């Protein structure tokens, strides 16, 4: 196990390296002069040159890259081009918000998607299948922002059950924190719920026809033991794959959701940095997202390893 994790981890280092180059280069080809961004349109050529000198923008590209990489390695992501505050501080403050909301979204997705998929798969062509498939399709089809606005209207405006915007940190008040992240998480989690449902259904319909499920029945196992222990357990393996893909997709969707619910998460950072052309911030966010996706993939591999004994041979 430890050897497996270490191998996977080492295998990621070259990928990480390539990502840093990619992130750096993309920012170079984007239009906009950082120095002019900072000083404004009326800046004199002398002051522009001074800023370029200070930011190292007049150095050769590879030197810029190396000095940037060196800083990143030590945790220094640079300073915002808008307000000169450290980027790493903004990211560290947004990280828990986004992790909490996306994590809760995935949990909601699993809580809806997996049982619905199991119900559908164990009653193919019957009422349970029809209802579950309808729910799944609805979840996928409804746009998150629309669901978000609808929920705001119903649960905040009408019923007043849930806060409409803002965020409370988990460390300050866990319950309030949960309430604040519930609607954003549902808005984000519906699509994964539908996708999980369809995936569990299709893979489990096949598994339920398999020879080993027949063996489990022939042993005289009760229906639920056949379904959960032999049917669902082997269907979980493809689910893990799609889980990592869906998490990456969630990271993209937080822009809309953070904006609607006024959450101080990554979505807001992205939105603001793009709006203000804060290149350092954008660069750092892209890097962090790439790291997150890589970390999720590593985690996926480890979960595979635990779920499927056949992987150990490789």
């Amino acid at each position, binding site marked *: 196990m430890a050897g497996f994790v270490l191998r996977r981890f080492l295998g990621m280092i070259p990928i990480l390296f390539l990502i840093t180059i990619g992130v750096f280069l993309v920012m170079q080809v984007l239009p906009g002069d950082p120095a002019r961004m900072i000083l404004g349109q009326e800046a004199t050529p002398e002051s522009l040159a001074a800023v370029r000198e200070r930011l190292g923008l007049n150095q050769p590209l590879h030197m810029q890259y190396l000095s940037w990489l060196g800083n990143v390695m030590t945790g220094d992501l640079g300073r915002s081009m808008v307000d000169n505050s450290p980027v790493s501080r903004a990211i560290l403050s947004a990280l828990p918000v986004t992790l909490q909301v996306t994590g809760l979204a995935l949990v909601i997705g699993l809580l809806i998607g997996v049982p619905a998929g199991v119900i559908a798969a164990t009653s193919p062509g019957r009422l349970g299948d029809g209802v579950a498939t309808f729910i799944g399709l609805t979840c996928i089809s409804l746009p998150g922002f629309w669901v978000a606005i609808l929920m705001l209207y119903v649960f905040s405006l009408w019923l007043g059950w849930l806060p409409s915007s803002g965020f409370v940190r988990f460390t300050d008040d866990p319950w309030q924190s949960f309430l604040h992240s519930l609607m954003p998480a549902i808005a984000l989690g519906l699509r994964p719920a539908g996708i999980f449902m369809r995936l569990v259904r299709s893979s489990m319909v096949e598994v339920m026809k398999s020879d*080993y499920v*027949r*063996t489990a029945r022939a*042993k*005289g196992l009760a229906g639920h033991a056949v379904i959960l222990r032999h049917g669902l*357990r082997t269907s979980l393996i493809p689910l893990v794959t799609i889980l990592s893909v869906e998490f990456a997709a969630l990271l993209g969707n937080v822009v809309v959701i953070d904006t609607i619910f006024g959450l101080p998460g990554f979505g807001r950072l992205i939105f603001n940095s793009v709006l203000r052309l804060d290149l350092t911030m954008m660069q750092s966010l892209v890097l962090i997202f790439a790291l997150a996706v890589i970390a999720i993939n590593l985690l996926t591999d480890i979960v595979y390893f635990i779920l499927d*004994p056949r992987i150990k041979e490789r």
Partner: protein
Amino acid sequence: MTDATGNLSHSPGTPVLEVRDLVTEFTTDEGRLRAVDGVSFALHAGQTLAVVGESGSGKSVTSLSVMGLLPARIGRIASGSIRLDGRELTGLPERAMRRVRGDDIAMIFQEPMTSLTPVYTVGDQIAEAILTHRDIGRRAARARAIELLDQVGIPEPALRARAYPHQLSGGMRQRVMIAIALSCDPRVLIADEPTTGLDVTIQAQILDLLRRLQRDSGMAILFITHDLGVVAEIADRVLVMYAGRKVEEAGVEALFATPRMPYTVGLMGSTPRPGASARPGAARLRAIRGNIPSPRKLPPGCAFHPRCDHMHEGVCTTALPPLEDAGDGHLVRCARWRDIAGVPS
């Protein structure tokens, strides 16, 4: 030619498993169809009854009917009786049937490669069967699983109990399946083509193993196969099925010495058997022409008549011939068996 030497039809005592007039139907989009039509047989302790037929003859459906494992909502036992030690199994609620399955009646299948769940160790999968039916602890069940692996001839059973199915060969996996089947000392073992798809040497080992286990435990075996070579190896009595019906039944030696039904003769002609040249024309391998008819459109009269060399228009094509006793419990369903055998009617 009527002496049936290997006839075991008059075995003493009540049979362990008795199937009478079993009719199993499937509901399909094109309506209801009969996969098994009025099959009867009796299986005694320590005996092996082979059910032989081509694919589509209804032999596997017969075994699934006995197990109560027909596909839900599609397949059902329309009529007939299945008795285990005199106790009626048809119409038993699922909960009660579950207690029979894997305990009194166990089953092994054709595909050992895919018949074990890939994510659990074989030891756990054997122990699971024991824990389902016996009130013992997990530790005891695991110990029993290792014992069973030893019994079915797996070397280093304690080590192999911790192996996953993909780490074992096909023959080993079939042994594990047998261990699962034996875990609760079943009265009846249903073996549905258990050696098909295995190497010939492994086939012989598995058959040996089944024979040895049967001798030790006295269980009855219902052996489903299309391979007459395997039948000759293991069966005491043979039931030949065609298009969902029983067409011939006899002791194994009687059947091989004097097959009555032209279909059985055809099956034997299409099976390579060394030293089978005693029968005229058996030296060359011959296929039965045509295919088994779909249960959707069975030919009228004897279902085999379109493929039969002895078919007589008007005799074979009108009424379904009855099952007749050709002597000593050698049952045959053929309107012309007397003519073919040269027996005066």
